């Protein structure tokens, strides 16, 4: 049984077909790639998975439970974490607070606890802080914990977004172009990190990326999306030699 299943999903905006009959089956603990030319609808799939857009037709199931009609925050609480193509950090919060914010739904101190600073409040804050610092350490930015997130260099902002998403303890992690705008050294470093996180935590990762080197290197299975439709799926060598994929890239992309 697949852990996450997208079943014949279509999404239309007033006649424009953003996704057509997309079906995917993600198994636990595997690193997937999702590639395709610009405007193919890759981020749209993320937006459907996270509940931002309800699909026009079809179904999305996480561990056999339909996510259609669920609110974005409910889906996040069920264990789908994500990053954004255009980074969306809480810029005026510190790096540490950004990660701590992801623990909101898993902690439960009440307003009374907060106002009277009860023992429970302190214990919980302390625990969240330690866990958050750990995540920052994994991403190698724990030395910047007290800096406002908006002040971080670009590459570190990308890392912080991943750390924040991990704060949800997700079962499925959606990474939207994590290497966009990074230089080759940073990209290599990030590539290793993603693989390490995925293995260490044994989570499922679905990754959108334009950097083919990165995708081919770490993804165990790759989906190719062209004009809202899946045209090919399989391991790197299969995808690389698929005629439709080559056509799509030569024909459409820059």
């Amino acid at each position, binding site marked *: 049984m697949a852990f996450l299943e997208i079943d014949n999903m279509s999404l239309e905006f007033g006649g424009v077909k953003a996704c057509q009959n997309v079906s995917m089956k993600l198994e636990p603990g595997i690193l997937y790639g999702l590639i395709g030319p610009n405007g193919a609808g890759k*981020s749209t799939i993320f937006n459907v998975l996270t509940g*931002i857009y309800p699909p026009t037709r079809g179904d999305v199931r996480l561990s056999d439970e339909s996510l259609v009609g669920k609110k974005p925050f409910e889906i996040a609480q069920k264990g789908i974490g994500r990053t954004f193509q255009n980074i969306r950090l809480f810029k005026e919060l510190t790096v540490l607070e950004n990660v701590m914010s992801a623990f909101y739904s898993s902690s439960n101190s009440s307003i009374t606890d907060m106002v009277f600073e009860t023992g429970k409040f302190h214990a919980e804050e302390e625990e969240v802080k330690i866990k958050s610092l750990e995540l920052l350490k994994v991403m190698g930015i724990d030395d910047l914990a007290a800096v406002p997130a908006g002040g971080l260099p670009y590459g570190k902002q990308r890392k912080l977004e991943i750390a924040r998403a991990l704060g949800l303890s997700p079962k499925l992690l959606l990474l939207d172009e994590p290497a966009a705008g990074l230089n080759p050294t940073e990209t290599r470093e990030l590539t290793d990190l993603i693989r390490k996180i995925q293995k260490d935590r044994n989570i499922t990762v679905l990754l959108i990326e334009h950097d083919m080197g990165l995708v081919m290197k770490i993804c165990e299975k790759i989906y190719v999306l062209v004009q809202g439709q899946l045209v090919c799926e399989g391991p790197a060598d299969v995808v690389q030699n698929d005629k439709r994929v080559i056509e799509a890239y030569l024909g459409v992309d820059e």
Partner: protein
Amino acid sequence: MNDFIQHTINGLALGSIYALVALGYTMVFGVLQLINFAHGEIFMIGAFSGLYFSRYALPAGTEPSIGVTLMVLLAAMIGSAVLGVIIEKFAYRPLRKAPRINILITAIGVSLLLQYGGQLIFGASPQFFPTILPRQNIDLGGDIFLDTNQITIFILSFVLMVILQYLVFKTQFGRSMRAISHSLETANVIGINVNKVIFITFIIGSALAGAAGVLYGIAYPKIDPLLGLLPGLKAFIAAVLGGIGNITGAVIGAVLLGLSETYVAGYISSTYRDALAFVILILVLLLRPGGLLGSKKIEKV
């Protein structure tokens, strides 16, 4: 039934005054995304410009006539336009890049400044707006009276709105203004002089409010420096009702508001008249935030 016709006539006259003010709100919102809270005071200054012009600039003993009315109207429009431009240049332009709440607070500050400045200059107690228009009550039979003032108000507002339609839809300025309302960035990129267009928008919007001030003075001849507060707010609500940023919508919204206020005052109670506008505001925003003629926008993720 007779009552109804009488209320409808009164409501249309009130609605056309609201419309002139609402147009300024909606135009400024279109280009700057700013609720210009000082617009009600520009309207008030229009009324006072008209008052002082007819008191001091016209020779004593001038008989009321359409010609005089047009002159007073023009004077008020100039007075308000000058004020609008000054406000834009000194209060809003320095804040073009600031967060919107700052501009809003500034607008409120300007509004207070004009209210209290007005009390200082014009005095706080109400003054009588001079009779500049020969007035007759035409008996339409069955106790329905048509005040010639109401016809004049209606016709003059209509003419001004036609001129505005021409400016917005047929001239280079209008095209630029609509381009800016659509997207300020794009307008910048394609080489539209944004500051100039905003400047002209304030001139036109303020002039219309000035004209409305005089028409208000004709219809309700007791004016004071706080007079802009409530009609200003209601005109703004009319603009929201029609779909803020939408010029036709502002007129439709204003006429609907004018009519319904008159009906409520006539059939229910005048104390609830002022509440009506706010009830409309809430219903529109909760049920159809884009207004009657507005469109829905989807946030891009």
